[in-house]
């Protein structure tokens, strides 16, 4: 290796981010070249200086405030089943309770099929956009007068999920807002409509016909995200989509 190569790699070398072969090459050069040796020494010294700066630990006031935040219950199918079991144990004639839980699970499954169908329809029919914009301040007002509610719209370009457009779609026979996000060549459709209940939690994750589906409710809105993206990245997207 010669100096320009080493100079280009010097930060990654100092950060221990080179593969073994490159690291060995840089190390050998640094051992014989005073200039590059100095560069490595400067970075080590700078790191010591920076680490000498006081750390901003969370003040106890913040700590207390965060502890006081009520963690919303996570509604998983297992919890629903558990709740049903408990109710079964403490009440008499609880067939109705179990039926209610099962009916809700069935309704959720039907909605999952509906949102996937809308997702596929939009992609195949090439009617993905009524409005094509990455600007949340263009997209949100666009829904005015087209829906009887105002869906939350947030561009997530900064997190690697740019908003690319929106349309009015239909799910289960009712008009819904559909936001379209992009991740590489993958499209994510987010369907939004007013929720029946207001559980602010991720309630449902499943795959259907090869698509990943996520469902949660927030601020009295039901949200469904559908994509052919892998489940880890779709979870990342769902977490990013916070108010």
């Amino acid at each position, binding site marked *: 290796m010669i100096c320009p190569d080493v100079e280009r790699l010097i930060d990654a070398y100092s*950060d221990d*981010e080179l593969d073994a072969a490159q690291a060995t090459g840089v190390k050998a050069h640094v051992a014989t070249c005073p200039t590059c040796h100095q560069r490595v020494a*400067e*970075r080590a010294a*700078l790191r010591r*200086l920076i680490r000498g700066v006081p750390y901003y630990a*969370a003040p106890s006031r913040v700590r207390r405030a965060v502890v006081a935040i009520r963690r*919303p219950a996570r509604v998983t199918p297992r919890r629903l089943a558990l709740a049903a079991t408990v109710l079964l144990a403490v009440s008499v004639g609880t067939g109705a309770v179990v039926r209610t839980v099962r009916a809700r699970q069935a309704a959720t499954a039907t909605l999952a099929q509906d949102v996937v169908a809308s997702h596929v329809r939009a992609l195949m029919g090439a009617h993905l956009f009524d409005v094509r914009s990455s600007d949340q301040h263009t997209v949100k007002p666009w829904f005015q007068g087209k829906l009887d509610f105002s869906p939350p719209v947030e561009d997530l370009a900064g997190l690697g999920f740019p908003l690319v457009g929106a349309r009015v779609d239909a799910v289960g026979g009712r008009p819904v807002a559909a936001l379209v996000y992009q991740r590489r060549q993958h499209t994510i459709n987010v369907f939004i409509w007013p929720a029946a209940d207001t559980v602010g939690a991720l309630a449902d994750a499943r795959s259907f016909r090869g698509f990943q589906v996520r469902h949660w409710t927030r601020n009295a809105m039901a949200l469904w995200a559908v994509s052919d993206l892998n489940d880890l990245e779709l979870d990342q997207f769902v977490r990013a989509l*916070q108010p």
Partner: protein
Amino acid sequence: MPHLDAAFNYARWLTKSDADAEDVVQDAAVRALRFFSSLRNDDARAWLLTIVRNTWNARFSRVGSADEHMVLDDMKDDRPDGQLDAEALVIQRQTVERVQRAIETLPTDFREVIVLREIEGLSYKEIAAVAGIPIGTVMSRLARARERLLALLGPDLARGGIGDLS
């Protein structure tokens, strides 16, 4: 809540204000707790920091931060001659202050990669995820940020016991 210190430290460096950092961290915590139970442990810190950054970004406009381009004249070593061998403790305290101010005067894009790498010890991959930039950009920003800091802090580096850097 795990990683709360990391969240506050990052927010404090982003906002350069205790009060703003408190607001950002509390907002971020509300968001994070909603999904925290689904986070794998090794990802949790990077995820929380991502949420902190997202919250800060939504709250504070990044334009018009003129302070980031301020002239650095006042950072020069203005101690009069003859005082150079003053008490080591004083020198050390002044060095820490200068380092702190040098980091604060970096543009936000540079400041955050320095804080995430040098103070929080995140990997390039984690920094890329938190800042929403490619790994190549992490590397080039770190390199440029360090060049700036080295230019600003050269004398402190030499005094910091690096004999061959006079």
